[in-house]
């Protein structure tokens, strides 16, 4: 394809080649190979006669700048590191465009594709990495490209010139830079990424979410959790990409950016020690003392690197050894990452996996789209993730590499270098104290420091009081920290603790969070955390389930339930027992059953070895001791007999208890059983702040115990008394009478409206009894009855959301959904393994 080009310049130097000088042959004219040569020449320019072989038909250039070349921000000439004159000036022979095909260690020669044989005294392998091509059908079609060298960029530019669509497989650094470039060049770009968050090796969930949102805002389609099944072709060329879940995306070009692999083929065939990379010691010497290796193709102390920074350090150690200069050798690198996409500032370094003795300091500024997280252990910085403002990335990275003690600047660390180095201002309070009275603290509501201080002095001694009296930090909340500082400065220790916040991750209460989710149209957990300045990266076991519920309630049909934010019972649709098995409770509508259902239950109990079968306090049957592996199967059997989940495990509608009522009972006034069944059919499947129980009694003797339920109906001759806010349990509370209605339909409407009011108003894990104690019965009555439209519109919202909820979760699992939740990863049978070895 490309004729080998040779700059044979060895003769120009006075001493000439061979003889005096040792022969150094370098395989790989890339970043590490040439840098190593530079480092050697800097130490001893007359020791070696140097020949460099490069597979690419061009001089040494800065590979990382291929991204700006693709994006149109740079030309190839701008990114050349060493032009032809460098080779000439240093008497280096460059053989470009003719790759080395074999190394013969016995004769100490290398052979190229064109048949050139070159002897060496010392050999340096710097072959870099090869793009990893995922083995799917269609991978060899024309139009499938990788992103590694200038030829790849040229192919992409040629495709982009024709417009159309591009699919990039891989949402890591390389994939996103390719996507960005192609999108700037006018293509419609889809990024398909296997993992649930972008750049998952460098970013946490919070930063990954922000990045995705920004790329989507720029018009790219980002598919996370997308597993490529096939590259579709038409007439031998790429036409699209199909995922394992069946989705298809059209494509005129497919960029494979799914990862890289050290290029170790030559070394392996030559018999050098190779694991993932070519194994080298601290002086970059391989298992053959005459052969060195450097760059992405090596494995040093078990690690293969994919970034340039480590190469610089490797090359220094290598050159010291190759010139017998004193030096300590290479000890491994801590790396940091930046994404080269214009307008997106992102930085990550070190370890940010949290854990014990490890403290996360998080700062979020929603208005400016900033997320910063630094991780500290024993007063040393060990990791950092910055999104939106990376000005301090270098400073954090420096603190991290040096392992400096940051105790003295701990308080101000997250605010960055300028702030933390401010000496006297190193405590945030001190910085706030130094602000002038007319400095604006709350941008949303235009409240100055002076006004906040005055409000505090006038008696607002808690955050909440300040918020309600002068509105500071009442909107987006990003100035909460500043307001808290002002409280502390103005009152000293007299600051009153505000109402309980949702959890330790936020300074907002449940009420604030619910209001802001609606007001700011927040639709995903990471988005809520960002916009409301969560102080932890991914929340805790308290706030995640609460946020999941609030979002589900706020955006029915739109929000996708986050399984990872649900308590095990709700994730597995069964109640966990003390021995780790589960109980299974099928629904029995209104407590009614049939011989056929009972038979199916009996069969299931035997088939799956239920050790206890018990009638519950909620008028249905509980099968105990079922193993998590058997759950989908037992549900399938129960489904087949017409039964669905009883949600005995959920913050959801549990049971509707009934008594026999007018159909049989000599005192019955109405069909309480029938009404109970109708109510249960209307309400099952709905998620609630807490569990919710209903009962319908046929007369005031109240055999269904309707007056200790969340919603109770007591039938009387003239109609239906509706009661709310009762529970048995730890603290028994009898219901309050809400109202009396004449018809079944009215009873159903009020029931639906009351449930919806509770769903929209109560805090997560607040049952109706404590909710009503908190807000008052009068509030509930007025919310339902002061406006004649209230009941119909609340009921309509309830029915709308039920549309999406009344699908039996068991049926989907029995059909195979989320099978992984019920299966072991594998089983270890030590004996079998011994044999297999």
């Amino acid at each position, binding site marked *: 394809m490309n004729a080998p080009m040779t700059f044979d310049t060895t003769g120009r130097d006075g001493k000439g080649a061979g003889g005096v000088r040792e022969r150094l042959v370098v395989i790989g004219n890339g970043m590490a190979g040439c840098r190593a040569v530079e480092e050697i020449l800097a130490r001893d320019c007359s020791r070696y006669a140097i020949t460099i072989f490069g597979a690419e038909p061009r001089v040494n250039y800065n590979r990382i700048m291929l991204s700006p070349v693709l994006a149109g921000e740079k030309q190839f000439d701008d990114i050349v590191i060493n032009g032809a004159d460098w080779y000439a000036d240093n008497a280096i022979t460059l053989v470009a465009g003719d790759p080395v095909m074999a190394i013969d260690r016995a004769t100490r020669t290398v052979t190229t594709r064109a048949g050139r044989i070159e002897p060496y005294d010392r050999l340096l392998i710097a072959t870099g990495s090869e793009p990893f091509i995922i083995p799917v059908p269609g991978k060899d079609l024309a139009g499938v490209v990788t992103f590694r060298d200038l030829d790849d960029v040229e192919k992409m530019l040629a495709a982009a010139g024709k417009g159309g669509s591009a699919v990039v497989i891989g949402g890591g650094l390389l994939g996103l830079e390719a996507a960005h470039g192609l999108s700037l060049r006018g293509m419609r770009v889809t990024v398909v990424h*296997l*993992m*649930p*968050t972008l750049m*998952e*090796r460098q970013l*946490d*969930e919070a930063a990954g979410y922000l990045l995705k949102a920004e790329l989507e805002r720029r018009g790219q389609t980002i598919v996370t959790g997308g*597993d490529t099944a096939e590259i579709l072709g038409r007439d031998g060329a790429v036409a699209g990409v199909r995922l394992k879940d069946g989705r298809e995306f059209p494509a005129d070009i497919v960029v494979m950016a799914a*990862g890289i692999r050290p290029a170790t083929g030559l070394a392996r065939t030559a018999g050098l020690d190779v694991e*993932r990379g070519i194994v080298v010691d601290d002086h970059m010497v391989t298992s053959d003392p005459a052969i060195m290796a450097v760059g992405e193709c090596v494995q040093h102390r078990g690690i293969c690197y994919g970034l340039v920074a480590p190469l610089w350090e490797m090359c220094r150690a290598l050159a010291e050894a190759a010139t017998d200069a004193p030096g300590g050798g290479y000890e491994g690198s801590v790396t940091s990452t930046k994404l080269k996409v214009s307008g997106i500032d992102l930085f990550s370094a070190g370890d*940010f*996996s*949290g*854990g*014990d003795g*490890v403290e*996360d300091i998080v700062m979020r500024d929603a208005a400016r789209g900033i997320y910063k997280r630094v991780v500290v252990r024993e007063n040393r910085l060990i990791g950092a993730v910055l999104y939106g403002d990376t000005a301090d990335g270098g400073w954090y990275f420096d603190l991290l590499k040096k392992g400096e003690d940051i105790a003295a600047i701990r308080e101000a660390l997250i605010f960055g270098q300028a702030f933390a180095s401010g000496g006297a201002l190193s405590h945030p309070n001190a910085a706030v104290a130094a602000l002038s009275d007319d400095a604006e603290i709350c941008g949303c509501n235009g409240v100055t420091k002076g006004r906040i201080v005055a409000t505090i002095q006038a008696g607002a001694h808690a955050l909440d009081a300040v918020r309600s009296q002068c509105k500071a930090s009442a909107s987006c909340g990003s100035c909460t920290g500043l307001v808290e500082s002002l409280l502390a400065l103005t009152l000293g220790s007299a600051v009153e603790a505000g109402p309980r916040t949702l959890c330790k991750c936020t300074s907002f209460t449940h009420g604030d969070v619910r209001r802001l989710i609606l007001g700011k149209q927040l639709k995903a957990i990471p988005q809520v955390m960002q916009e409301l300045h969560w102080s*932890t*990266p*991914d*929340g*805790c*076991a308290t706030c*995640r*389930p609460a946020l999941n519920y609030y979002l589900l309630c706020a955006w029915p049909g739109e929000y996708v339930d986050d*399984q*990872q*934010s*649900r*308590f*095990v*019972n709700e*994730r*597995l649709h069964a109640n*966990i027992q*003390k*021995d*780790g098995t589960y109980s299974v409770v099928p629904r029995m509508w209104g407590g009614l059953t049939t011989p056929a259902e009972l038979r199916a239950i009996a069969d299931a109990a035997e088939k799956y070895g239920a050790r206890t079968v018990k009638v519950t306090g909620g008028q249905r049957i509980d099968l105990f001791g079922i193993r998590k592996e058997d759950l989908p199967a037992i549900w399938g059997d129960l489904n087949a007999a017409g039964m669905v989940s009883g949600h005995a495990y959920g913050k959801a509608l549990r049971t509707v208890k009934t008594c026999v009522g007018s159909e049989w009972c000599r005192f019955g006034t109405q069909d309480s059983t029938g009404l109970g069944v109708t109510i249960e059919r209307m309400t099952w499947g709905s998620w609630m702040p807490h569990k919710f129980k209903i009962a319908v009694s046929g007369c005031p003797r109240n055999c269904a115990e309707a007056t200790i339920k969340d919603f109770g109906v007591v039938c009387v001759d003239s109609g239906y008394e509706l009661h709310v806010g009762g529970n048995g349990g730890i603290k028994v509370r009898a219901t309050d009478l809400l109202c009396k209605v004449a018809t079944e339909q009215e009873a159903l409407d009020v029931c639906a409206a009351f449930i919806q009011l509770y769903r929209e108003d109560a805090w997560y894990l607040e049952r109706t009894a404590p909710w009503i104690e908190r807000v008052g019965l009068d509030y509930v009555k007025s919310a339902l009855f002061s406006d004649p439209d209230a009941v119909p519109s609340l009921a309509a919202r309830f029915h709308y959301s039920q549309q999406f909820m009344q699908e039996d979760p068991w049926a989907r699992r029995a059909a195979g959904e989320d099978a*992984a*939740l019920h*299966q*072991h*990863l*594998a*089983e*270890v*049978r*030590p*004996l079998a*393994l011994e044999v297999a070895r």
Partner: protein
Amino acid sequence: MIGEWLDVGPVGQIAPGDARTLPVRGGEEIAIFHTLDNRFYALVNKCPHKQGPLSQGIVHGSVVTCPLHNWNISLKTGEALGDDKGCVPTIPLKVDAGRIYLLREAVVGRQVA
């Protein structure tokens, strides 16, 4: 860590925020966790409190909250956090080229020889 590594499959088998189990014939069941910031950890699947199956808890940061009584257990050290006291054994784990490996002797060595 020196020793032999047991390949237990690709990382994609465990969604972030989830855990999966690995029963060991004649030994303790192991739980492998994938945190939301994409780290992997392995512990014996038994809460130090009353043997709750930790694999079924909610994962946040590098902590799992036991599903039975809400103890918080560190995935890194196996220790109970806060005021609770107790510790569950951890299994050395490494991820290499997209696959999860457990230190073999920690998995099977736990059995009676």
